[in-house]
């Protein structure tokens, strides 16, 4: 699993956070010469996506469905990545797509998706609603107002009956109060009656398929409560004469980014110590990621993503389904199955796990007055937004001239004329000091990190994107929008 042989020379006590890399990303990193050539041609930064991997990831979720005898659909949350290649590959598989804007919907349709495999979520304007209704997409509504607007739109434009779901966002908990962050999307479970009344008046234009939730948390207890709340909401709908068939539990299943738990634990411990001042800083200006010291005591909370996370993705879904419902006291999977409900999921980040990396060229290496090594990249913190998402993971150095020199701790800065344009606030230990022209590969960036926040600030270029495909250790590439599933040939 280790990529560059030099990385192994780091001692086990060094503060490193080696990324997990697998599949074709490993093959790509093993060919630095080709990568130098491509970045010379297409510029830095450069995004690389692996469309074939997304289908493999989906089969992990399918296996969990099969284990629990559940039926239902997987919808890829498009917002995690804008890649055309990924969407076209999905269109060629049995997986659906969850679109949250008119642009994403058009993108999915152009990639070959039919309306029935598209779910429309998020805040929706009239144009978005019209096109979604026109192509027969499943509309996951956010509010009663949205359903009313949709019903009026369907009547006005004589559109076919629209399949809809209603998103719930807050639930009452038995016994123990389970607190969740308030969400600006969805309705409270107690508002279900009012929603059903509205749907009842619009049976000729809206067809209730089921209920949904998406709760922004990694806490299983909150999600179990929400899923049970959905079961009760379905029951209420059935009682009102509707025939709902599916519960959509959204995404948020998470990704494990790191190889080694020990490295993660050591790093986070040392970060606490650095903030407390009992060891030299390991971040820019002793940045604490939410931690701060007050009178020798650590205050605040470590606001980082649990980058080493053994229970993530399909395994997280499995744990959720295996667990008991808080008041019905049967496993959630059993409850879904015996009530004959389909289960829909909308993974984003975890479905594009190991599906991409971002390359950036080293522009300058300098030593600051304080003695720090500052490495400036031809990319900025919006091109590589790992730090914005609080994921702590080291990049992989692809040196033009590999040497046996000692590992060096460096700070990575970006190409914006802004003080806070740091690719990461951590000091990163690289196997050798980088030189101008070297490449840094930020792996596993396909989920939210490569193009979610990228913009043209300072008229800097936005990364081009290529798709790589192949098999058996060999790979070929094309521009992202030149990729069609016939190239991969395996699906």
């Amino acid at each position, binding site marked *: 699993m280790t990529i560059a042989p030099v990385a192994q020379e780091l001692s086990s006590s060094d503060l490193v956070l080696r990324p997990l890399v697998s599949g074709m990303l490993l093959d790509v990193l093993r060919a630095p010469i080709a990568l130098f050539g491509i970045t010379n041609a297409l510029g830095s930064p450069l995004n690389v996506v692996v469309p074939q991997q997304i289908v493999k990831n989906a089969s992990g979720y399918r296996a969990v469905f099969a284990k629990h*005898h559940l039926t239902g659909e997987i919808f890829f949350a498009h917002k995690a990545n804008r890649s055309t290649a990924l969407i076209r590959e999905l269109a060629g598989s049995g997986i659906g797509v969850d679109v949250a804007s008119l642009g994403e919907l058009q993108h999915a349709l152009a990639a070959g998706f039919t309306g029935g495999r598209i779910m429309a979520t998020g805040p929706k304007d009239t144009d978005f609603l019209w096109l979604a209704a026109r192509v027969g997409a499943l509309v996951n509504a956010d509010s009663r107002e949205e359903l009313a607007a949709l019903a009026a739109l369907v009547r006005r434009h004589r559109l076919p009956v629209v399949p809809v779901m209603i998103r719930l966002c807050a639930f009452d908990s038995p*016994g*123990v*109060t*389970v*607190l*969740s*962050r308030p969400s600006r999307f969805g309705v409270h479970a107690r508002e279900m009656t009012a929603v059903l009344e509205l749907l009842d008046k619009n049976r000729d234009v809206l067809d209730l398929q089921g209920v949904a939730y998406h709760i*922004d*948390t*990694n*806490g*299983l*207890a*909150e999600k179990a409560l929400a899923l049970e709340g959905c*079961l009760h909401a379905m*029951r209420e709908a*059935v009682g009102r004469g509707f025939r709902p068939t599916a519960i959509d539990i959204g*995404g*948020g299943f*998470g990704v494990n980014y790191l190889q080694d*738990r020990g490295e993660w*634990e050591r790093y*986070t*411990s040392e970060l*606490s110590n650095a903030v*407390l001042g009992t060891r030299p800083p390991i971040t820019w200006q002793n940045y604490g*990621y*939410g931690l*701060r010291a007050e*009178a*020798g*005591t*650590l*205050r*605040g*909370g470590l*606001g*980082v*993503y*649990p980058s080493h996370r053994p229970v993530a993705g399909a395994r997280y879904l499995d744990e959720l389904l295996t667990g008991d419902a808080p008041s*019905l006291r*049967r496993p959630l999977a*059993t*409850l879904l*199955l*015996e*009530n*004959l409900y389909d289960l829909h999921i909308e993974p984003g*980040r975890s479905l594009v796990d190991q599906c991409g990396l971002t390359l950036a060229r080293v522009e300058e290496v300098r030593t600051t007055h304080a003695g720090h090594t500052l490495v400036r990249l031809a990319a900025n913190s919006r091109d590589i937004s790992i*730090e*914005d*998402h*609080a994921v702590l993971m080291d990049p992989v150095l692809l040196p033009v001239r590999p040497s046996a020199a000692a590992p060096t701790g460096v700070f990575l800065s970006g190409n914006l004329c802004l003080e806070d344009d740091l690719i990461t606030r951590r000091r990163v230990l690289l196997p050798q000091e980088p030189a101008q022209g070297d490449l840094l590969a930020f792996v596993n960036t396909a989920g*939210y990190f490569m193009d979610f926040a990228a913009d043209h600030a300072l008229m800097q270029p936005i990364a081009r994107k290529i798709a790589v495909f192949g098999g058996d250790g060999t790979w070929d590439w094309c521009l992202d929008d030149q990729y069609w599933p016939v190239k991969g040939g395996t699906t």
Partner: protein
Amino acid sequence: MRYESILDVIGDTPLVRISPNVHGLNNIDLYAKLEMLNPFGSVKDRPAWNMTRAALPDAVARSDTIVELSSGNTAKALAVIAAMNGLPFKSVTNRMKVPEIKDLLLLLGAQIEELPGQTECLDPTDTEDPLTRMYRMLSEEGNGYLHTDQYFNPRNLDAHRTGTAREIIKDLDGRGPDVFIACVGTAGSSMGVATVLRDHNPDVSVVGLVAHKSDFIPGIRNIDEVHEVGLFDPANYDTIESVTAQEAIDGMLTLNRRCGMLGGPTGGAAYFGAVRHLRSIDDALTERATAVFIVCDRVESYMSYVRQRRPELMKQPPRANSVEALTDSEVAGARSVDVAEAQRWIEQDTRMVVDLRGPFAYSALHIEHSVNIVDELFDELLHGGLPFGASKPVLLVCPVGEKSARYAALLSKMGHRDARSLRGGVVAWRDAGAPLVRD
């Protein structure tokens, strides 16, 4: 002994010697301070009472709610004290990890609030973690809360300075131990006792025990978490050592089985950490030494904790008529019928259809005239024997026909002559368009 109030029973716990046959140390007398014998069951009775007693009259006058960030023994003791004084008690916690304590708190009338988990879409610049927000709410003047603030309240330490520590010194004939070993939770007991022991005998060696970083031991913080404790001062400990959950359970079993002390995993961690540390110094000793550790609470609340980590300890003898004991060929031999055949079969009299799904699902939709016996209950009934006549024709139904086949096989094995399973279950029934009803 006669007392006016149960609160007067708090403290004055026994110090009991651990037999050398158990710990195997040659030159050290090891004593357990049995804090589990406090009236509400743990060492936390002391600080809970000490942190509330002075503030109680005012709190009662204002009808304040007592609130604490605790998911364990402190919450338990505070819940009792609050209830005795007619005040509400609210326990705010990241996650209740010990279900027995959770149920006990609810039984005592406590309100439990679980803080939300970490967000998936993190913003590292957001320092408004739920805990900080909670603290701010609690620290506002006149907010209707009595916040005992165990991780920062000096009265937590004082409870042990004036109580626990003095009792230990008195029981060791006024000289105090040479080594003191304590688990670090709020750091109240370890810091409070250690400071007094050190005043008394500057040569005392203090060992603080923390949980292994990725492990959970109730009532003990891990090496990172101790830094978040306001009362914690590393300078007060000669060494800090870590204990794993498995080691804590090992220690607990020794206390429970060999010493007759029914302490929980925290006490087990203290015993394990104590013996491990003392063994390393035992041989070099030239004269006898004395060591003390704290058994903080009782084992009974931790059955599910132990079951999860050591299922073999709870192993029951195999029960009669169990589906787990069926062989594959027995299951494969179960009679099953498809939907069409089942529909014809049901038409006749004396037929019984048993739906093994949960009542929530059954009440929504089921096959007409079927009887709902949920699988767990059916399983329990079969352990005792056939719940209906051996010749009563019966069709078992479950979601996909898997469980029903197993139970049909078990019924046949138990001597039932006319049991069958619906192939493909209710799912196949629905897919075939066969009627499902709701009453």
